[in-house]
């Protein structure tokens, strides 16, 4: 009793807390702040087949309740990652989740078949069908149920690794997209990536972000994330992983009650790099005080 261990499908994590992709790079920097083995896992910066320089100019805009980013998937490319970072991630003592992005179904297929060759060093592939900051692929694939089906089916044929499908919230009907991903063979759904937003500098009359729009993250998006997790968890049989605006242990618990088996923290780490340590301690306190296994909370939401 009173453990914070959870499972995402067959994958056992020693905590529900996973560092969200793009907010922890490959772990190098944060490992100088705390022992990352306290985490449930770490999701790599989004990777693509070829290296990407990302967007030019200003990439961050602050809002009252979060921030917008338009990094544009800057990353060293999958080969450089395999050479320089994958082994490092395996030293961290936490689950190694690889965030996979692309412009086309071919990209995703190429990435997955390459990464599958290192399946002993990877605990799950997180398929990013939701990055709003690149022109093609990602979010545009993730917004179309049929494309989601197609890309997930194609990837499923290539790997036995758990396929976590990370979806965009910028859609009319998240349930049907999540369901399509499940039916196509996904092992888990990650909800949510960022909301598409814009901030304008009223002095220059230009968007703050040089990509004009960006992905909105942080506490301001949590109500949308919780709603989507609850909506999807109620129709899916595969696990849901919550994400969006986590700043406290109560937020983690809220996501789990809504239906999440595990919970990612993104912007929270940017604001306070050691916030995951504090949240982990608080979760341990919580389960002790309440004498429960944290995993027993998943999906306990009783609707009215």
């Amino acid at each position: 009793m009173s453990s914070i261990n959870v499972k995402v499908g067959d994958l056992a994590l020693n905590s529900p807390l996973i560092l969200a992709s793009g907010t922890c790079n490959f772990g190098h920097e944060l490992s100088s702040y705390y022992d990352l083995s306290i985490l449930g896992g770490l999701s790599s910066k989004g990777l693509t087949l070829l290296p990407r320089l990302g967007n030019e100019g200003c990439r961050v805009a602050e809002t009252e309740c979060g921030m917008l980013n338009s990094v544009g998937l800057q990353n060293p490319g999958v080969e450089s990652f395999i050479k320089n970072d994958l082994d490092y991630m395996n030293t961290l003592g936490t689950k190694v989740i690889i965030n996979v992005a692309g412009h086309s179904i071919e990209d995703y297929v190429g990435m997955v078949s390459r990464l599958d060759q290192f399946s002993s060093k990877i605990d799950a592939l997180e398929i990013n069908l939701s990055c709003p900051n690149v022109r093609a692929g990602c979010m545009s694939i993730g917004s179309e149920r049929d494309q989601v089906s197609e890309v997930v089916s194609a990837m499923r044929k290539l790997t036995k690794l758990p396929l976590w499908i990370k979806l965009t919230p910028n859609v009319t009907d998240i349930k049907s997209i999540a369901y399509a991903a499940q039916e196509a063979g996904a092992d888990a759904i990650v909800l949510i990536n960022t909301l598409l937003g814009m901030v304008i500098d009223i002095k220059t009359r230009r968007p703050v972000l040089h990509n004009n729009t960006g992905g909105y993250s942080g506490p301001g998006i949590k109500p949308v994330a919780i709603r989507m997790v609850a909506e999807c968890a109620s129709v899916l049989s595969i696990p849901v992983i919550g994400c969006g605006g986590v700043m406290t242990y109560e937020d983690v618990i809220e996501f789990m009650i809504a239906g999440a088996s595990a919970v990612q923290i993104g912007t929270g780490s940017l604001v306070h790099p050691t916030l995951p340590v504090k949240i982990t301690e608080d979760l341990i306190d919580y389960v002790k005080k309440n004498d429960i296994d944290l995993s027993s909370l998943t999906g306990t939401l009783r609707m009215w």
Partner: protein
Amino acid sequence: MTVSELNKEYRAVLVEKKQLNEDTFYLSFRCPDIAQKAIPGQFVNISCSNFLKRPFGVASTDVANGLFYVGVKTIGKGTNSIASLNEGDMVDVLGPLGNGFNFEGFDSFILVAGGTGVFPINFASEYLQAKNVKHTVVQGFRCKSQIVMNRPEYVLSTDNGDVGIHGNCCDCLDTLDLSLYKNCAVCCVGPLPMMKAVGAWATKNNLKCFVSMEQRMACGIGICLVCVCKLNAEAEGQEFKHVRCCKEGPVFPYEEVIF
């Protein structure tokens, strides 16, 4: 890595606040670790009323008392909230962050400061002074009322000729007798146009030049990739690369920066 070697997010108390001019303040915070570790050109990330922290170059340290200093020019909500802290108030701080100036391999320095660049340059000067390294500080301001962190021995210019040399930093630099500076490097912190001009001046004079870049930041510690600077990457077979200002910077060799 032992626990004591881990980086931390500190809670630091504001020990003293001085107003330097209309919109610029000089603050000292108690944080022995930062005071001890910081080198010139590094910065700290300080919490404010807003969602994200704000970066400031370390302006000085007082290791004995465990203090570090920053100069804050109020330009928006975040800097205003920091400037209106009261002595005794607490902030969250990360630091020291980034790579500071690499003084190794040079025997003398010309330090050039404009705008809020006077703060990190002050720290550089104090640091070199303590090591008895020959250096000269050149400051450029718009006008007399803007002058802060000045000392009698500094070479000063003002755009309107109020005090010092009438002109900009490069006009000051031109007055220096470079034969007196052996194996010399230029370190410049100021507005982009100034750093560009000073870099060009240094190149013309066959001097190595380091500049300190500013970018909007989120984490300040290298995990979010929002703060990148565009650097020349011909050596790597590319036109340019994006490098984190907070982690690989904020100090870069002038010739690598694509302005």
